[in-house]
């Protein structure tokens, strides 16, 4: 049933996505311009997923701020953050409150920096993220783009000797909303191709850190300011995520401005998409694909063959962030599972296109639902009778109702441990995902077998 009311949403709000990106930039404190509840709620969600400290500041609107505008609060917040944290960067994102009253934040920031002196104050990067348009992924991509634009303007005025050794090939990577483990893995791969990667963002350390001997105000890690300034020097740009093809993305911006080639690829999950990814790296680097990845690919294909008996003809419901959904659906088609329903809370026009192509290619009937909510997913799932679900923790209710396993991917995962370390990407990540899917199917079969087989 199509409803006006959203029942159990399958999307989060845009300031969340922006905050995540800022967490992946070294020495950055995100600042949400609006009610303190936004920062508190978003921190709460990140913290229960990543299980790490996540400091996000707020300009703490009260009623009078909402009436007279947030300039004063914003300036006060910037000063206080600077005093307490001494950050390198403050990432300012708006909320629906400041957007609705029409605060002109760029103007406020301009005035503030004029007064304070922009030389001595940390960089302030601004991104507009009204939560009444788009999803957390729109906030994510907008923040990436804002950061890239900010430093491309800055570096235009910088001395060219700043950029160091140009003989080394560098790749700017826009990895999309993936796990810290995914970012670490992508980094390893690019380094193995002999290139220097710059990730925007890189929260692989800030949101999956070690235990500390000494308290750190801002956790170590994240993409450095220097690396952000060097983005224009990147030999190549690598942008992951199918939805970015239809968007005014950071990669496209850098390509048009500085001429480095932008490779827009789907999130590398499954053989086909990861092959594309490695092929691109091969072309970019001019090197052979390292043996270790050939072996990973070989093992993955071998596993596909071995587990085919468990998976063939099984049906899955895939839901969550649109780019994750598209890539997982493609991977499922590869292994003989039919993604009978693919859903996202996003508007998802690119997702729809990609899934339609997939449906034609594999001759699978795929129900595609954009702007979906979980009750809608549930209604469809009851008819489609899937064997398992793949998506975030919010699918648990459905999994419980249908009595089928939920393979957890994406965000948020707050009912299992180790979300930061879930590897989804490339041959190795696919392998882990694949093993988890097979075992979920086998475990269900086993627990339902009357004989109580120990061999499955």
């Amino acid at each position, binding site marked *: 049933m199509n*409803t*006006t*009311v*959203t*029942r159990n*949403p399958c*999307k*989060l*709000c845009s*300031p969340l996505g922006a905050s995540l990106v800022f967490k992946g930039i070294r020495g950055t404190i995100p*600042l949400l311009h*609006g*009610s*303190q*509840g936004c920062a*508190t*709620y*978003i*921190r*709460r*969600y990140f*913290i*229960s997923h990543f299980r*790490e*400290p*996540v*400091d*996000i*500041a*707020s*300009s*703490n*609107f*009260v*009623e*009078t701020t*909402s009436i007279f505008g947030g300039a004063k*609060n*914003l300036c*006060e917040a910037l*000063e*206080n*953050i600077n*005093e*307490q944290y001494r950050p390198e960067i403050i990432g300012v994102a708006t*909320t*629906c*409150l400041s957007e*609705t*009253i029409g605060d002109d934040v760029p103007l406020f920031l301009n005035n503030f920096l004029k007064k304070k002196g922009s030389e001595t104050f940390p960089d302030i990067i601004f991104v507009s993220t*009204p*939560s*009444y*348009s788009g*999803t957390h992924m729109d906030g994510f991509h907008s923040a990436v783009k804002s950061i890239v634009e900010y430093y491309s303007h800055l570096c235009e005025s910088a001395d060219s000797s700043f950029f160091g050794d140009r003989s080394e090939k560098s790749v700017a990577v826009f990895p999309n909303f993936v796990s810290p483990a995914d970012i670490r893995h992508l980094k390893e791969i690019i380094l193995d191709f002999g290139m220097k990667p710059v990730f925007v963002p890189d929260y692989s350390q800030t949101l999956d850190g070690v*235990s*500390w*001997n000494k*308290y750190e105000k801002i956790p170590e890690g994240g993409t450095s300011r220097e690396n952000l300034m060097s983005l224009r020097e990147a030999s190549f740009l690598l942008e992951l995520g199918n939805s970015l093809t239809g968007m005014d993305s950071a990669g496209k911006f850098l390509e048009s401005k500085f001429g480095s080639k932008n490779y827009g690829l789907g999130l590398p999950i499954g053989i086909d998409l990861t092959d594309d990814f490695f092929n691109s790296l091969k072309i970019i680097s001019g090197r052979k694909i390292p043996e270790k990845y050939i072996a990973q690919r070989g093992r993955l294909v071998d596993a596909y063959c071995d587990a085919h008996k468990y998976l063939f003809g099984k049906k899955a419901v895939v839901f969550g962030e649109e780019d994750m959904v598209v890539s997982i659906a493609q991977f499922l088609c590869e292994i003989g599972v039919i993604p009978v329903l693919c859903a996202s809370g996003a508007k998802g026009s690119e997702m729809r296109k990609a899934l339609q192509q997939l449906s034609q290619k594999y001759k699978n009937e795929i129900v595609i639902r954009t702007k979906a909510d979980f009750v809608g997913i549930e209604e469809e799932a009851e008819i489609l009778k899937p064997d398992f679900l793949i998506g975030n923790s919010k699918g648990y*209710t459905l999994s419980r109702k249908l009595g089928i396993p939920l393979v957890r991917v994406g965000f948020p995962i707050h009912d299992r441990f180790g979300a930061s370390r879930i590897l989804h990407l490339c041959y190795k990540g696919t392998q882990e995902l694949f093993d988890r899917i097979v075992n979920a199917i086998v475990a269900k079969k086993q627990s339902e077998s009357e004989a109580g087989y120990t061999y499955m």
Partner: protein
Amino acid sequence: MENVEKVILPDGEMIKEDILAKYPPKVAKKRNKSMVFNDPSKDQPIQSNVRTVPGIITQRGCCYAGCKGVVLGPTRDIINLTHGPIGCGFYSWLTRRNQTRPGPKGDNYMPYCFSTDMQDDNIVFGGEKKLKEAIQEAYDIFHPKAIGIFATCPVGLIGDDIHSVAKEMKEKLGINIFGFSCEGYKGVSQSAGHHIANNQIFKHVVGLDDKKKKGKFLINLLGEYNIGGDAFLIEDLFERCGLTLVSTFSGNSSIDQFANCHTADLNLVMCHRSINYVADMMEKKFGIPWMKINFIGANASAASLRQIGKYFDDKDLYQRIEKVIAEEMPAVEAARKEVMPHTKGELAMIFVGGSRAHHYQELFAEIGMRTIAAGYEFAHKDDYEGRKVLPSLKVDADSRNIEELVVEKDPERYKLRKTQEELRKLEKSGVRMKEYDGMIPEMVNKSFIIDDISQHETDMLIAKYKPAVFCAGIKEKYTVQKNGVPMKQLHSYDYGGPFAVFKGAVNFYKEMDRTINSRVWGLIKPPWDSNPEITATFVLE
């Protein structure tokens, strides 16, 4: 607090100076007033319920969170419809761990999140039409008894009138529909939201059903939110004592209970902060007296039960209460004996809520631990210093915009439960009605009291005192643990609990023992850092 050992503590005044040194002068001045280094011989005022300084990372939530998440969250059969963009609804969707028991036939909408999911065009052209459609749909799907509409930040700003929509739809659908103007920017913390929530329930639900429950001793429990199943233990205890619970605000509650709560003869106030005004209003309107009780801590629970006994002054009730206490205490004593050698003399810090930071000190004291620093996230001055300060409280701009209901005696439903004479007699026997002394008088000498503690202050306190355990919420959890200090969540109980009354106390003692004495804290430093010579060891500890 007889079990507390003497420990040598760092100089609190110096620590305070260190903390404040990091702030710009104006902020330092403001924060200084929210920190008290306790000296019980003096009357020390503390600043609370004031705006959080922008950019200071607070643990506070917003008005909407307090209204929808905290107060109405645990009520199972009112459909909670968030009117706003998607984030607010998503974040408040089954995130607090309040449990409920709807029974085989009862409605339970707690697992659902309903939102109007406002889009750009709703912000520009108004969202009332969409809200009406959403109410209609929620009704068509579930046919609930009631629907509550919760306003988020943009709603008040664009001028959507949720109350007139509620009224219109109420007339159309014939069910109870009411709105909460709990926009996130209202008030200074979630406390404003509690107030708005309670006011609306009082206005739109309380008193609608005069059917009286069977039972001799009818009570309401106010300010108990059934985190981790606390309410189930309390309910069990009441039943065994022969007390009949009419309504709980709002742990394990249903709208029907709110509707006839005015038939009870005594209100028990657990969380003073979130609900004392409801107790006052119920006294004024219906004549129900109230007393502050505390069911956190075995001793406190026993004392609270005995107070209730005295109020009703019934021989049979006294006996049943004593019998229940006698049944419960052996397990409590056994657990205490078991953990005490591992916990005695250790330091605890508690920074939560509007009452828990006070109540949980009981539990720590029972296992010989000392609460060296505590503070509330969203409490007011009376929760720190007691109700004696109420007449002197000034109403500031942020409190003024939270409606104060004008309540009068209900001509039909008002019933005097206790005469002034009887109340005086009760007072003489040690039962204090309508009183709460707050947290500060019960704290030990040289302890720290900090209101609305910031991340920076938390870090400093931990560094200076190295407490054995720090209690707060999920947002502080990993920050504290990165410092090598165990952390216990007292909002959600770390997915454990229950911790209320006697069985809960046993759970808590054991959990503290495990938390504080876990071997994991010894693993942080690798052996090669302290003993570079050692290459291998065969000796198992």
